[in-house]
């Protein structure tokens, strides 16, 4: 009987015939922390008197507080810098970018097992890696021992057919799916995205789907490694890291959900849960105080290109602040080369250094009481952006950029209708 992507990868890495429901001990290829979860992980290892790491690739990313806005966080950064120097782990210091963006750019390979002290570690699933978020103790022990335990998840196959219409993006697809499933609709499950609608998506678009798998409760968001994956790794100078990996045709799925991409419309997640999604037409006219374009969900160069296309020779509404945060240094450099940063600044945006920006409420754009933010991030929980009295709406970079100009939530299809997208 055939295997799902999750069963295939976990079989390889555990040396067992891994089937949904089994408990396996699997080799860990990549173990990573960010600055919010790393300090607790390091302290657990110190408690156990462990000073060296065994995972093939062990990493610490300083991205949530980058640069640090407070002395307490600066001291956490000192702890992580010192531990990585002594333990053999790599350090990605402030300015390098968000953990998940850096992992896909430079570290994760198809078929890897990746554990990260951050729930959006599932982003790397789009490379065909079993990548999942865990807490500090699990990641610390996985990093130290080079292995961890998993319950092999049952899989929901998300079968997507057709091409997304102009003005509709993979962010809209995943928001729609989460709205359908609910925030706990896929708890403990693997989501496996496939079908011709996924095959035709760029890697940038696929990462958005995997990134948000956890918002339906899923453990991983997997996509087969194919020609597009190869092209992506080649563009990053990592062709040797590529290998094809796909689920078996006769794999067993707990559920198959079919989505016709052609019928989708732009989506908006309303406060305060990600599954509170509605078509953008139901959000039209909601006044926006702040627009945030960036994060591990939508801070890639493709996202910034779409935003720049919309913002070129335009100005943000006078009452709407516009914050743009490239997800990594590489994205920032490319945006600079392409002239996108100038377009943004002329449109009235403020550009922050690579990192998580205001997404987690640590710094750089905390909301005031009663304020509304339209964000390209993956979460809109109450208090998420530093103030429980703020209201966060989630949407695609196109919806966000167009809404920044209009000062209210707006339907990006109004502009894409006039300028049809090129094929491909």
């Amino acid at each position, binding site marked *: 009987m055939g295997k799902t992507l999750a069963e295939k990868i976990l079989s390889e890495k555990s040396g067992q015939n891994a089937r949904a429901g089994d*408990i396996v*001990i699997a080799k860990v290829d990549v173990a990573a922390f960010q600055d*919010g*979860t790393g*300090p*607790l992980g390091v302290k*657990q290892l110190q*408690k*156990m008197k462990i000073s060296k790491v065994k995972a093939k690739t062990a990493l610490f990313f300083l991205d*949530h*507080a980058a640069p640090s*806005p*407070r002395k*307490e*966080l600066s*001291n*956490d950064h000192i*702890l992580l810098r010192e531990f990585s120097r002594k333990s053999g782990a790599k350090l990605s210091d402030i300015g390098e970018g968000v953990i998940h963006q850096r992992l896909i750019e430079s570290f994760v390979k198809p078929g890897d097992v990746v554990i*990260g*002290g*951050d*729930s959006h*570690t599932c982003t790397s699933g789009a490379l065909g890696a079993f990548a999942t*978020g*865990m*807490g*500090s*103790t*699990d990641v610390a*022990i996985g990093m130290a*021992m080079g*292995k*961890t*335990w998993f*319950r092999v998840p049952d899989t929901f196959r998300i079968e997507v057919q057709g091409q997304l219409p102009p003005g509709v993006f993979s962010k809209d697809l995943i928001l729609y799916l989460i709205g359908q499933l609910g*925030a*706990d609709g896929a*708890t*403990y499950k693997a989501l496996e995205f496939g079908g011709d609608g996924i095959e035709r998506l760029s890697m940038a678009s696929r990462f958005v789907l995997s990134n948000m798998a*956890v918002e339906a*409760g899923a*453990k991983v968001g997997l996509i087969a490694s194919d020609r597009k994956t190869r092209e992506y790794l080649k563009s990053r100078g990592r062709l040797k890291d590529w290998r094809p990996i796909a689920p078996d045709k006769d794999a067993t799925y707990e559920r198959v959900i079919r989505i016709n991409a052609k019928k989708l419309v732009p989506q908006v997640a309303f406060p305060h*849960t990600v599954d509170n999604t509605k078509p953008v037409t139901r959000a039209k006219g909601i006044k926006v105080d702040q627009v945030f374009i960036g994060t591990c969900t939508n801070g890639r160069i493709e996202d910034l290109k779409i935003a720049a296309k919309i913002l070129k020779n335009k100005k943000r509404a006078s009452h709407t602040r516009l914050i743009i945060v490239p997800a990594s240094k590489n994205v920032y450099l490319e945006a600079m080369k392409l002239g996108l940063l100038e377009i943004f600044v002329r449109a009235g945006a403020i550009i922050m250094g690579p990192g998580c920006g205001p997404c*987690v*409420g*640590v710094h750089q754009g*905390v909301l005031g009481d009663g304020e509304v933010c339209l964000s390209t991030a993956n*979460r809109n*929980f*109450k*208090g*998420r*952006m*530093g*103030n*429980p009295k703020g209201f966060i709406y989630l949407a695609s970079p196109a919806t966000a950029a167009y809404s920044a100009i209009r000062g209210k939530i707006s339907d990006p299809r109004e502009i894409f209708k006039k300028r049809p997208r090129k094929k491909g």
Partner: protein
Amino acid sequence: MVLKGRVWKFGDSISTDLICPGRYFHLRSNLPELAKHVLEDADPEFVKKMSEGDFVVAGNNFGLGSSREHAPTIIKLSGVSAVLAKSFARIFYRNAINVGLPLLECNTDKISEGDELEVDLSTGIIKDKTKGFELRAKPLPRAMLNILKDGGLVAHIQKHKDFKLD
């Protein structure tokens, strides 16, 4: 082990942002201070009102969101003896067991705020002394029960020098 305490009732979808707000990110290396803000965005008065040994009782998908282990850690540090909910988010569930915070999955509809509960962790039997009814929690998977019995994941690994989940 039998736990006794009063109920503090919460709704569905209590996220880790509500349990451990991002604006206290700088306190993550100061857990006793962070624990003073536990569940603050779900109920700003919770820490003032609760007493050692009390139970947090909630609806569906408790602990959804971020992987921050600080969330179950500060619930435990605040003195809460166990969390009862209809369902738990995956990462939170595993984290709670790792840090030794007992979780009980059961239908919490009939339990009200202020009820006195008696919870037997070894049998999963929950007695509502105020209302006089009994519930049975879904048993923990064996792998997790082994980790919890050892006192959390650090203690488990220290004891066995490896994962010993069977």
